[in-house]
């Protein structure tokens, strides 16, 4: 692109105005929400998941996720009785339209694993961002500032769970926001709203009345890749040992 002095003189004030807009931000939409009173996470109950793909479709609708990209997706595992360490995993179109039928009597164990951003307390993705465009909020949600993101893709590589992608049109990193625009208004996430079996439940770990506390007392839950010490807050109940 060739910019001569005349063009630059026109462009600079325009850029200044645009930057002013970035500086100003937009006002808080939910004035009664106190960030310090929440610490968000998600409970994923594997024995309840039927692989219908409702969560994937709901997320796409709620958050305008482009086709072929996923903020949440569902995987179908086939853990053979003979190859316990190497399960076969499929996720056709993220499980958006469900899965091929598995016939009765097939060898091994079949089950569904919904995946999403784990909203890690010590997230590798926020640590690698060179410009402070991704961060964990005071209420425990990992977010991306699309106005600051350069689209360098460091965070996409850093996420051990593969939860981030570069948005094909905006060219910035994108991922699950835990429906931050909903949970700050007292609603649950779109995926939880659409889940017909309660396999996904939004959890507020700072709320003593949240059913998550009773659940955690009476169940042994796991997180994905605990050896990476990410402080993941997507808690899986009934997770098979073959899931990585």
């Amino acid at each position, binding site marked *: 692109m060739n910019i001569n002095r005349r063009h630059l003189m026109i462009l600079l004030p325009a850029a200044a105005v645009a930057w002013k807009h970035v500086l100003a*931000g937009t006002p808080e939409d939910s004035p009664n929400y106190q960030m310090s009173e929440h610490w968000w996470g998600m409970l994923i109950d594997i024995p309840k998941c039927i692989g219908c793909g409702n969560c994937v479709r709901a997320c796409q609708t709620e958050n305008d996720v482009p086709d072929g990209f996923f903020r949440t997706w569902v995987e179908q595992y086939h853990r053979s009785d003979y190859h316990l360490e190497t399960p076969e995993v499929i996720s056709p179109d993220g499980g958006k339209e469900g899965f091929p039928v598995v016939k009765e009597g097939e060898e091994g164990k079949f089950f569904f694993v919904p995946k999403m951003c784990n909203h890690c307390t010590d997230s590798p993705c926020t640590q690698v961002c060179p410009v402070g465009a991704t961060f964990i909020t005071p209420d425990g949600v990992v977010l991306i500032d699309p106005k600051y993101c350069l689209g360098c893709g460091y965070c996409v590589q850093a996420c051990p769970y593969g939860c981030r992608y570069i948005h094909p049109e905006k060219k910035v990193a994108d991922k699950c926001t835990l429906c931050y625009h909903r949970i700050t208004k007292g609603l649950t996430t779109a995926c939880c709203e659409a889940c017909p079996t309660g396999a996904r439940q939004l959890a507020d770990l700072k709320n003593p009345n949240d059913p998550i506390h009773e659940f955690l007392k009476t169940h042994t839950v796991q997180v994905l890749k605990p050896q990476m010490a990410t402080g993941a807050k997507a808690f899986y109940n009934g997770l098979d040992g073959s899931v990585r």
Partner: protein
Amino acid sequence: MSGLKDAGHLFRFAGLFVLAFLVFLVVRAYVVPKSFGEYGHYRGAAIGEIAAHPVKFAGRQTCETCHTDIADIKAKGAHAHVNCEACHGALAAHADDPMSVTPVKPDSAVLCARCHTASAAKPASFPQVDPAEHSGGAPCVTCHNPHSPIIGSDFTANAAKGGAK
């Protein structure tokens, strides 16, 4: 100590540094957003901007504010725990403007099969059927009321509310 009389160029140089630093401070004050560093090494206003996104799923409570009749039927049925928009889709637009935005009734042959088609990958306790064998291709609502799907559980409501006719 005869060097100081020739030190003028050093002071000029230091002055240049101070000037550059001042320019840096002025530019920085202008380009760094006010909310940067409010909560951490990021733009605090971004949180509010993300929270301001529009909501598309209205949420069950919103639906039940108006559709109390369906809520009553549903509360007694086997689908009591299923949220309205799990089947009907995102309808915040309808909740905001019920007159001009009318929801499309879901096609039960597709919708019910999505969850209830038998597969060994699904938990055994979940009710599953082979749709072709179970109904011979007839729509599920011929016999079942989707709001209270167990046949006979609430048949009067069935007939009244778009279930069996």
